[in-house]
């Protein structure tokens, strides 16, 4: 990025903002100086660009950002931007100077300057952005940093509320602006400002013009605090005064009118523009001025006055006439100067007296005559008194207001509104001056007020001087610069206008006189009433802030919660119901649309035994569903029955591998659930069958869903089974299994070779689950009613204790005395079986998985026969090692292929010649399967043992408890 002055102007504030962080927070001087210097530098840079800007050709910079989306880092400074940049940096500098004295050392000074600088950068960005989206970027940044600045004293409830409200409103506007800019880009085909400014006719005639306009206006009107979004600005007065002086006179709120002026050539001139902008402007003008009169807070008065003056500008822009636009631009500058000085004066007063309440302030003039004089002059400018800059633009405004642009009631009302607004401005300006500086000296101030330090007062003085000079010699001072600004906005449409104090006796002058006189009269009549009024007349009940809060809370909180409750749930059953229903719908929709016919592909005749078998299976399943609530054990046994029938089905339909695997899994699952059942207290029947009709209805609904789901699966599976099978990938496997996979059991070859990757993933799942189960059970807390030994054991134990010939625990010993012998002798048998299943897998049903589960069942058998302690005194089973080792073996077997440049998991197979034995098949897949075996053993044992261990954990805890009792 070359160091174009434009880039520098933009980058300096941000860079300085970051630089401020680096300085210690204890001292405020460096931050102040950096900020001031940055402002000066930016100001100087801007000034240096004057020659090129004055030539009429904007200064440009183009950097690439996201060219494919039309978002470029394009900067563009024309006269309008130039004068605004000057205003921002100039007033910025003065505010820094002022803030140097204003911000107390107890405040986090660094943070203030950081945000202040960043805000300045963002504001400059809005001004010089040459791309609509880039403009939005900076626009949003101004919202964010203004939020941070307003909330600077966030220990204050008011500051927090003000900041929140400001960001909510301007954030909403910003997003709308983004949408509007997107539409504008869509209409124009470019986000480039130059291109957009060229495309006025296309924009105004486009069908999307109205939504575009609405969205953009939503952005600008919220930003400029225009009706009906004006309410956030008074609340933003909780900000430190330098912030108000900067943001709410020259920068933040000006961004809105700035953008309206910027896009004025392409958006204005239509009835929609006129009506919307006009109403907003007029309402703001009058309403702001009216409400300003009633404010007791000094800054509140200034805030409403700002709304009113921005309304004036907005109203001017709405008119669509070039002369009005000139007036608008001129008033933007004028307002900035007098309002900034007034804010700073207000800050001085607050600073010196400790209050901003107009009712408490009085007679200050004798304590601070210089400040008082300055404030009076600035107020006069605000009221539009001749010889001051405010008067000039107001005259132009009056002149435009009386002209008829678009014939409507709005147009007719404009001059009256203008006079009314001006008169009210006179009233509140008078009230401001009179209430603060005149009258009796106050009885008590928090501290004795006196003049502020010179350099704190200097910025006010400077700005007031500017008001005066411009007011007296407009053409010689501001004239050329204003012309550059105006012509850069209006281009060829720039009208001829004259900046003079005296235009002769004309209607605008008459209006000015009326306004001044009426305003003064009003203050004389009602001044005291204003001072005593609790709230504004008529509109007092309409409290923007409260309405805002109510609406926000209603929409963003109460309504949101309602929506969350109605359209969401945290319960599981509705979620399951929805999932099932969605699946049914998803499956049914295409079938309904495309139709479904059954085929005639069949294998074998209906076998009665098979049908009977499934009669058993179905009855078991339904009974399990029926009994699962109160007869858990029965449901478990029935589940086992269903599983058994499933196994038999696999046998029946030529899938012995599945049968074997399902069988061992079945057995282990049963043991597992039984282990778990010990920790589930019995269900009592008191929460029994539903009697309530609603519950019954729900059960019927669930039953319907279940039946439909079942029917659906039945129909779909029948439809597929009766179709001629497609050409599948299976033939490949059948072809290659023996020749290239080295196994006759195709299913097993698929598992350990063709699709060994699936198997690797699958055993990982098993391993993960085992580890999870283990982890979860380490923190296991049983249900309170299961912590005690099971009922049976208690009874048996008490029987043992009652019998003098028996010792506690002898029932248990006796119970297993004979059976455990057989159970132990089955251990080596199971091992042999597991090895057999494992080695056989490649050629016949079996394989690592079935073998592993079988092996695990062997271990469990021993645990059941003799108890955990007994087994673990004899066998050191390290299930986690089995899991890790198994995974490593499987993974490394697969990875070994990489050494040969082959892909992962490629298997090698050959026949080895062993003495005595002969040809022995050797497949690397067997090694892989060994990994599977190891993992499965480890995982299964880990899960089962982790549950089993809870029983002895409980014993240990009980023993600890007993000991504790003994010691106490």
């Amino acid at each position, binding site marked *: 990025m070359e160091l174009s002055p434009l880039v520098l102007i933009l980058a300096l504030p941000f860079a300085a903002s970051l630089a401020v962080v680096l300085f210690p927070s204890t001292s405020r001087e460096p931050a102040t100086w950096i900020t001031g210097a940055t402002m000066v530098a930016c100001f100087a840079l801007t000034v240096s660009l004057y020659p090129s800007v004055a030539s009429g050709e904007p200064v440009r910079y183009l950097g690439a950002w996201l060219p494919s989306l039309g978002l470029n880092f394009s900067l563009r400074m024309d006269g309008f931007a130039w004068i605004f940049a000057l205003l921002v940096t100039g007033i910025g500098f003065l505010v820094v100077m002022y803030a140097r004295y204003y911000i107390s050392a107890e405040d986090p000074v660094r943070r203030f300057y950081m945000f202040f600088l960043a805000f300045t950068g963002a504001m400059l960005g809005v001004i010089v952005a040459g791309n609509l989206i880039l403009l939005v970027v900076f626009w949003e940044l101004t919202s964010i940093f203004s939020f941070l600045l307003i909330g600077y004293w966030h220990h204050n409830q008011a500051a927090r509320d003000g900041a929140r409200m400001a960001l909510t409103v301007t954030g909403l506007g910003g997003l709308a602006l983004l949408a509007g800019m997107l539409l504008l880009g869509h209409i124009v085909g470019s986000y480039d400002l130059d291109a957009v400014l060229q495309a006025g006719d296309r924009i105004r005639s486009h069908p999307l013009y109205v939504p575009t306009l609405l969205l953009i206006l939503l952005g600008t009107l919220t930003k400029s605090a225009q009706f009906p979004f004006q309410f956030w600005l008074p609340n933003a007065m909780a900000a430190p005064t330098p912030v108000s002086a900067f943001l709410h006179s020259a920068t933040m709120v000006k961004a809105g009118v700035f953008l309206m002026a910027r896009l004025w050539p392409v958006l204005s001139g239509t009835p929609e523009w006129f009506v919307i902008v006009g109403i907003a402007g007029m309402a703001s003008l009058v309403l702001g001025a009216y409400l300003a009169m009633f404010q007791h807070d000094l800054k509140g008065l200034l805030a409403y006055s700002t709304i009113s003056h921005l309304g004036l500008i907005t109203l001017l822009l709405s008119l669509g006439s070039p002369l009005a636009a000139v007036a608008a631009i001129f008033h933007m500058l004028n307002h900035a100067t007098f309002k900034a000085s007034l804010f700073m004066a207000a800050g001085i007063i607050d600073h010196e007296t400790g209050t901003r309440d107009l009712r408490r302030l009085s007679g200050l003039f004798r304590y601070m005559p210089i400040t008082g004089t300055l404030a009076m002059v600035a107020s006069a400018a605000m009221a539009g008194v001749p010889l001051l800059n405010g008067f000039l633009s107001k005259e132009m405004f009056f002149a435009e207001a009386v002209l008829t642009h678009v014939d409507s009631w709005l147009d007719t009302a404009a001059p009256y509104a203008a006079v009314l607004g001006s008169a009210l401005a006179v009233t509140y300006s008078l009230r401001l001056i009179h209430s603060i500086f005149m009258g009796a000296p106050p009885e008590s101030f928090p501290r004795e007020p006196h003049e502020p330090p010179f350099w704190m007062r200097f910025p006010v003085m400077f700005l007031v001087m500017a008001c005066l000079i411009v007011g007296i010699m407009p053409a010689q001072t501001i004239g050329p610069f204003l012309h550059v600004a105006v012509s850069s906005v209006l281009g060829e449409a720039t009208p001829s206008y004259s900046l003079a104090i005296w235009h002769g006796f004309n209607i605008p002058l008459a209006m000015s006189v009326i306004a001044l006189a009426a305003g003064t009269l009003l203050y004389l009549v009602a001044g005291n009433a204003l001072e005593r009024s609790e709230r504004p007349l008529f509109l007092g009940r309409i409290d923007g802030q409260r309405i805002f809060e109510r609406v926000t809370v209603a929409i963003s909180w109460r309504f949101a919660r309602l929506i969350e409750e109605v359209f969401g749930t945290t319960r599981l059953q509705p979620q399951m119901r929805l999932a099932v229903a969605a699946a049914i719908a998803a499956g049914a929709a295409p079938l309904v649309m495309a139709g479904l016919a059954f085929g005639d592909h069949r294998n074998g005749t209906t076998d009665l035994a098979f049908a009977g078998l499934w009669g058993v299976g179905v009855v078991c399943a339904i009974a399990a569903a029926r009994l699962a609530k109160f007869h858990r054990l029965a449901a478990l046994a029935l589940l086992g029955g269903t599983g058994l029938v499933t196994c038999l089905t696999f046998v029946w339909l030529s899938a012995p591998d599945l049968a074997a695997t399902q069988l061992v899994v079945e057995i282990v699952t049963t043991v597992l659930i039984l282990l778990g059942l010990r920790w589930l207290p019995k269900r009592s029947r008191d929460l029994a069958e539903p009697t309530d009709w609603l519950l019954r209805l729900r059960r019927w609904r669930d039953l319907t869903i279940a039946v439909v789901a079942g029917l659906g699966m039945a129909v779909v599976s029948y439809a597929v089974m009766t179709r001629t099978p497609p050409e599948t990938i299976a033939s490949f496997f059948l072809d290659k299994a023996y020749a290239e996979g080295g196994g006759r059991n195709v299913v097993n070859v698929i598992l350990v070779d063709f699709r060994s990757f699936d198997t690797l993933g699958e055993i990982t799942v098993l391993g993960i689950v085992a580890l999870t189960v283990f982890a979860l059970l380490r923190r296991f807390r049983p249900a309170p009613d299961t912590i005690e030994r099971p009922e049976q054991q208690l009874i048996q134990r008490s029987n043992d204790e009652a019998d003098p010939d028996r010792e506690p625990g002898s029932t248990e010993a006796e119970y297993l005395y004979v059976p455990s012998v057989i159970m132990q002798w089955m251990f080596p048998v199971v091992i042999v079986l597991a090895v057999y299943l494992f080695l056989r897998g490649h050629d016949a049903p079996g394989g690592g998985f079935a073998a592993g589960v079988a092996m695990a069942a062997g271990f469990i058998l021993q645990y059941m026969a003799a108890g955990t302690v007994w*087994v673990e005194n004899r066998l050191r089973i390290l299930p986690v090692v089995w899991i890790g080792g198994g995974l490593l073996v499987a993974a490394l077997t697969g990875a070994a292929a990489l050494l040969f440049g082959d892909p992962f998991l490629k298997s090698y197979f050959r026949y080895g010649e062993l003495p005595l034995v002969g040809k022995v098949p050797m497949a690397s897949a067997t090694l892989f399967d060994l990994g599977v075996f190891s993992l499965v053993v480890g995982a299964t044992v880990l899960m089962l043992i982790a549950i089993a261990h809870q029983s002895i954990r409980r014993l240990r805890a009980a023993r600890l408890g007993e000991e504790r009792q003994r010691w106490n």
Partner: protein
Amino acid sequence: MSRVLPYPLLTAALLLMWLLLTSFSPGQLILGAVVAMGASRAMASLQPDKPRLRRWQIIPRLLGIVTLDILRSNIAVAGVILRGGGRDRRPGFVAIPLELRDRTGLAVLACIVTSTPGTAWVEHAPDTGVLLIHVLDLVDEAEWVSLIKHRYERLLMEIFE
């Protein structure tokens, strides 16, 4: 010997099992031996009571007797069931004082009693040696006691004690 082959008989049985499962080939013999030895070692780590077969010659006789008894009982019980549960039948428990103390012997006895339809092993008290069985058709209690004691227990005691 005992460290390498802690349970020679078991190892042999497991080897036989392996060969039955696979095939009687030299390769399987070697493999089976390895597997059987490994399994026996695993068994050894459980340190079960080591049964001593003192007179294994009697085993075939016992087997024969049991097979025939079971066959007979099969017919009898099938008859009972097919006759509709038998109203005149008198089921009941029989307590038999056993002298056999060897756990393996008892286990074999349990298998025999249970496998024989019509008798069921219900409860055995190791301290007293009293065995409680349930009989489907109990005609003469003493006959059942002597059947168990003389027909099976005696032989088992000869084999194991």
